[in-house]
């Protein structure tokens, strides 16, 4: 933890726990088939979401990907409405029309996610373009994985963002796997930040399981963007502790590798740091976890007791 960082890290730890509890509950409900469809969990990646979003404002423009429950919660999304959405209920953020991969929590600044890998990177450029024109020091931030780094729009977006000096922060969650395949099988480029440098964008690679490191990199990035100095690329090295989607046995991954990453659990690391600094006690830590799990139990109860959308919703809202 850097001394000058004024954040309330206990609150940030609470937020990380809220994400972890949310996703573990979603996983359990999925196993019971109370939640169906495709569920991509980011368990183990909470430090990136919370570190990044804790530096953003509600009038900034945040874009996610297909693994974005965490980003939405980090941005301040209501866990009841989020759980209801992924359970397909009428009370969900999108009335059940979006689901897990299409979260929109407009009031938090979390604009949208996407089912297409890398699909929101160009959208973030648009948010940044509008921000630049409005001159209210807003920024756009977009989360994507290492798998997006080999897609055309990623490269086109880095080029345009650099060319037009757009206030956009590219937050790359490099979790080492594009679906089932390790990054090394998809590209010779080991660090995606290298691409950003090619396009003339300041870039750094940080330990994405270290909340303090993510905050430090993001703090610099946000400052540069708000000062109209152009885009910044922050690559966060992390790992998802679950499969690509729920139901994926992830046989492509060595168990030893999983064990290594579990040792670097981002929540445990924040907890240990705060304890070491005597900011927090074991008892406090227990209550933070318990409170998060209670909130999520309530969210699940809210979601599962909510009505399904009415059938006549099926072709409503096709046009604005």
């Amino acid at each position, binding site marked *: 933890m850097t001394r000058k960082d004024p954040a309330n890290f206990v609150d940030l730890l609470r937020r990380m726990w809220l994400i972890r509890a949310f996703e573990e509950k979603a996983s359990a409900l999925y196993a019971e088939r109370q939640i169906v469809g495709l569920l991509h969990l980011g368990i183990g990646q909470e430090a990136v979401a919370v570190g990044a979003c804790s530096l953003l404002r509600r009038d900034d423009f945040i874009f996610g990907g297909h693994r974005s429950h965490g980003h939405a919660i980090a941005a301040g999304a209501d866990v009841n409405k989020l759980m209801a959405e992924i359970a397909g209920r009428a009370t969900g953020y999108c009335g059940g029309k979006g689901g897990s991969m299409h979260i*929109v929590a407009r009031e938090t600044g979390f604009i*949208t996610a996407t089912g297409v890998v890398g699909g929101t990177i*160009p959208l973030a*450029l648009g948010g940044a*373009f*509008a921000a630049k024109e409005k001159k209210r020091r807003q920024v756009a931030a977009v989360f994507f994985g290492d798998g997006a780094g080999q897609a055309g729009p990623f490269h086109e977006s880095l080029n*345009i963002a650099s*060319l037009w000096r757009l206030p956009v922060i590219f937050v790359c969650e490099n979790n080492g796997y594009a679906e089932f395949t390790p990054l090394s099988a998809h590209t010779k480029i080991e660090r995606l930040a290298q691409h950003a440098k090619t396009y003339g964008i300041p870039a750094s690679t940080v330990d994405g399981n270290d909340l303090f490191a993510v905050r430090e990199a993001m703090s610099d990035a946000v400052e540069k963007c708000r000062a109209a100095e152009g885009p910044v690329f922050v690559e966060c090295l992390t790992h998802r502790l679950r499969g690509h989607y729920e139901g994926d046995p992830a046989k492509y991954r060595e168990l030893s590798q999983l064990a290594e990453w579990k040792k670097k659990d981002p929540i445990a690391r924040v907890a240990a740091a705060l304890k070491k600094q005597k900011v927090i006690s074991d008892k406090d830590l227990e209550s933070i976890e318990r409170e998060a799990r209670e909130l999520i139990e309530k969210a699940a109860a809210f979601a599962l007791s909510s009505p399904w959308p009415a059938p006549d919703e099926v072709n409503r809202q096709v046009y604005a």
Partner: protein
Amino acid sequence: MPEFTYLEAIRAGLAEEMRRDKSVYIFGEDVALGGPFGVTQGIADKFGLHRVVNTPISEGTVMGLAIGAALAGLRPVVEIMFIDFITLAMDQLVNHAAKLHYISGGQLKVPLTVRVQCGISGTMGAHHSQSLEAWLAHVPGLKVVMPANSADAKGLLQSSIRDDNPVVFVEHRGLYWTKGEVPDGERVVPIGKAAVLRSGDQLTIVALSSMVAPALAAAEDLAQEGISAEVIDPRSIAPLDVDTIVGSVKKTGRMIIVHEAVEQGGIGAEIAARIQQEAFYYLDSPIVRVAAPFAPIPASPALETAFLPGKERIIEAARRAFAP
């Protein structure tokens, strides 16, 4: 009424909307320089390079950028230089622009206009001549308009820009230098409303975009043969003004549909299906489609002529509709 070319009418519509609404921005390749046909000529001088933005040749990303800007409160107009290149932007258009209002449960709106020109003109071959509007009309959430004259070009463009939905505004390159009267002042043409261009009571000819003029010429010739044809330009294909076409067919009992796009899976198939659903018992003969063959667009002028439907084929189709 003053006369404008189709191209000048589009330019006038753009300029009026940019003047009226400061959130209207133009994005596209070479747009600040007027583009290859001069549609945006002089717009950058009037409104500045910050609102008339030249982009790299990155159609998909520029489309996404415009969608993002629309989500953030702007009202972008994206120019895709040839409809053949809209393929590169289909992901953003189909997966984001068209769906975000619905899948956000109404939280988001995408007030985006995509200007694109299509069609055969100037023997430009397989990648600069296609008519792909039926793909777009198949996507829930998109609106698709295809003006056939100067007045509709201006009025529909203004409606498109003011619409809170993504609208694909499909221009036809072959119409750019055709002239037509454009009413002075504000005359916005509503999206989803067909125009009856000629009245008749024996045959309905539904013609789109570049095929409207040949359809009117064919109707004139058919009148000499004693066939009274009504000519309807749907102007919008999504939403489609089915009522106007149904009303006409109930009166005439016969219908021809004419478009420049390939016949198989073209919008004519949809129109025919809707008519047989709603006016089957009024039909005295099978619906006939006049459209391009199921082939890519060839480069040779000789083959291009063979590919393109026109007045003669419309007249033949009309005679077929009346064959005993």
